[in-house]
């Protein structure tokens, strides 16, 4: 009789843990708001271009129309539908931001963990490298790189963004790994003959997952902002439709002086919303990880003071 219950236990325990994790995420208002925003944009990126299956660059007869039932967000100077461009551009920009952020984060994880774990000359070289990249001005370097590379497109922009975006994470993770390398569980697995890379990625890495997540979110925000900036300057492939190239064409056609606010407003709103969503998740994780930042405790102390009693407890 007792055997089946024993078999059930681990899975229900895991389920419980999963539920706890979910509660932790949703109990924090910032995280849940951020997750909703992120989910919305990911869904638009996946299904938007499928639902509105049209060429976003297609020209039309309605030139520079303000928003109307026929064109929900108006049209450009060449009659392109802006709503369609925003939806199609969402896929390009969101996928770009997530992929670039992920690649940069992987580099910072490898560099940071390897440097922190191995120490010695490997650490010296790696931390010098990341410190140098940290003090190099990112946006100007990105502009210089993107100007010199003859091929203009997402690969160049992505490369530039990764090059300029990985160093901060590497530094943070290195410091964390340094403090972890002499802990008991690491010593134990070293003594039992685990290979170095196994210790790094199976023993140490899971303990740093919160930092890595924060790093990933920050890098994704940076990647999207950098991409938009570079494309706005005309350093990307101006024929693909993304939020950044929408700015480029709006700027090039003097949308501002024509009073066409519906042209440059929507992509900016999307970027700000998505960026804010990611930032909310980030700050929320901060609050979960650092109890001092939570706001529950402080008001009690304030009440003590208001009632005029000395703070004894």
């Amino acid at each position: 009789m007792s055997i089946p219950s024993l078999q059930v236990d681990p899975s229900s325990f895991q389920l419980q843990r999963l539920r706890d994790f979910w509660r932790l995420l949703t109990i924090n208002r910032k995280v849940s708001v951020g997750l909703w925003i992120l989910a919305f944009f990911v869904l638009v990126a996946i299904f938007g271009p499928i639902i509105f299956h049209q060429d976003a660059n297609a020209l039309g007869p309605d030139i520079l129309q303000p928003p109307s039932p026929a064109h929900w967000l108006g049209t450009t100077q060449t009659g392109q539908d802006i709503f369609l461009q925003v939806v199609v551009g969402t896929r390009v920009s969101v996928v770009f931001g997530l992929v670039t952020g992920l690649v940069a984060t992987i580099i910072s994880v490898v560099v940071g963990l390897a440097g922190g774990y191995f120490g010695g000359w490997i650490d010296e070289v790696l931390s010098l490298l990341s410190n140098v990249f940290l003090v190099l001005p990112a946006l100007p370097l990105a502009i210089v790189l993107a100007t010199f590379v003859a091929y203009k497109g997402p690969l160049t922009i992505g490369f530039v963004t990764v090059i300029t975006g990985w160093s901060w994470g590497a530094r943070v993770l290195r410091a964390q790994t340094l403090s972890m390398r002499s802990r008991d569980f690491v010593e134990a697995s070293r003594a039992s003959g685990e290979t170095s890379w196994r210790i790094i990625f199976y023993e140490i890495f899971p303990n740093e997952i919160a930092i890595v997540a924060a790093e990933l979110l920050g890098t994704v925000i940076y990647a999207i902002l950098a991409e938009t900036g570079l494309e706005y300057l005309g350093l990307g492939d101006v024929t693909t439709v993304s939020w950044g190239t929408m700015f480029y064409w709006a700027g090039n056609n003097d949308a501002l002086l024509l009073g066409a606010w519906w042209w440059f407003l929507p992509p900016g709103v999307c970027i700000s919303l998505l960026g804010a969503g990611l930032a909310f998740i980030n700050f929320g994780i901060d609050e979960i990880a650092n109890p001092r930042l939570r706001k529950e405790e402080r008001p009690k102390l304030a009440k003590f003071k208001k009632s005029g009693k000395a703070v004894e407890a």
Partner: protein
Amino acid sequence: MRHLLRRIGFYLVALWASATLNFLIPRLAPGNPAQTLMARLHGRLTPQAQHALEILFGINHDPLWSQYLQYLNNLLHGNLGVSITYFPTPVSEVIAQEIPWTLMLVGIALVISFVLGTLLGVIVAWRRGSRLDAILSPLFTFLSAIPYFWLALILLYVLGFLLNWFPINGGYDTDNTVPGLTPDFILSAILHGVLPAFTIVISSIAGWLLGMRNAMITTLSEDYVLMAEAKGLSSRRVMLVYAARNAILPNITSFALSLGFVVSGALLTEIVFSYPGIGYALLEAVTNLDYALLQGIFLIIAIAVLAANFLADLLYVALDPRVRLERN
């Protein structure tokens, strides 16, 4: 002292790395854009200028290491090449001409943003959980995620174009005023600077506020703050002298770091407002494929950032007794 020497060594390495990147990028880029450029310039340059450009772009046939040495030698003599956009002005002169605009605009905006943001951060942290905190913190989180050139576009559209309160481009009224220390010019320059400065303040203030708020909250739970409250000190004194003073350190360090980005921080803002300065010169360099100017600007920005980092290191040692004690 040993620490200081180590840091100086590091900054020299970083400086060398930026200069070398500057040297290597045009040479490693696939498809040499410099060659097309030289063809375009043929006959317009003096032989010396042509030679200098050739070294800069690496199209002469010397081996790479010898080109590299010549490039470093040129840098050490302050020779950054000749600008093509503003031909035949040397790059160093173009930069010297543009940099005061950027320094004034971004410098003033940075100070305003730092002071306002830090003060607001202190207040918001002090009243944590109040309605003020509940409104301001998410609002500024949202502001921090706005691409600042887009914010610049919106402000330009609403305040400049629709309401016509501010001029929509340039650094001063080029038709009616001449640069100089005349009241007309200064007034015109201020009027043209308000909108770009406002943009920079709005888009950077969130960082100061949120950074200060978090540092302040951590400090507020320290025992000495509780002690100060228990002694019955006025809450203003506790807030400013006990908590804020100890929490402001990271913000001061970031302030020193931001000084380096004074040169580069407003690139896109300047471009949107067609405001004279480093950012606008950079755009000109990009659109005219003016590689010498582009590289010169990158180098200047890199030097400014490195200098600011060094300043931040020094400040940290000077301001935090704990760091000093550890070192001695």
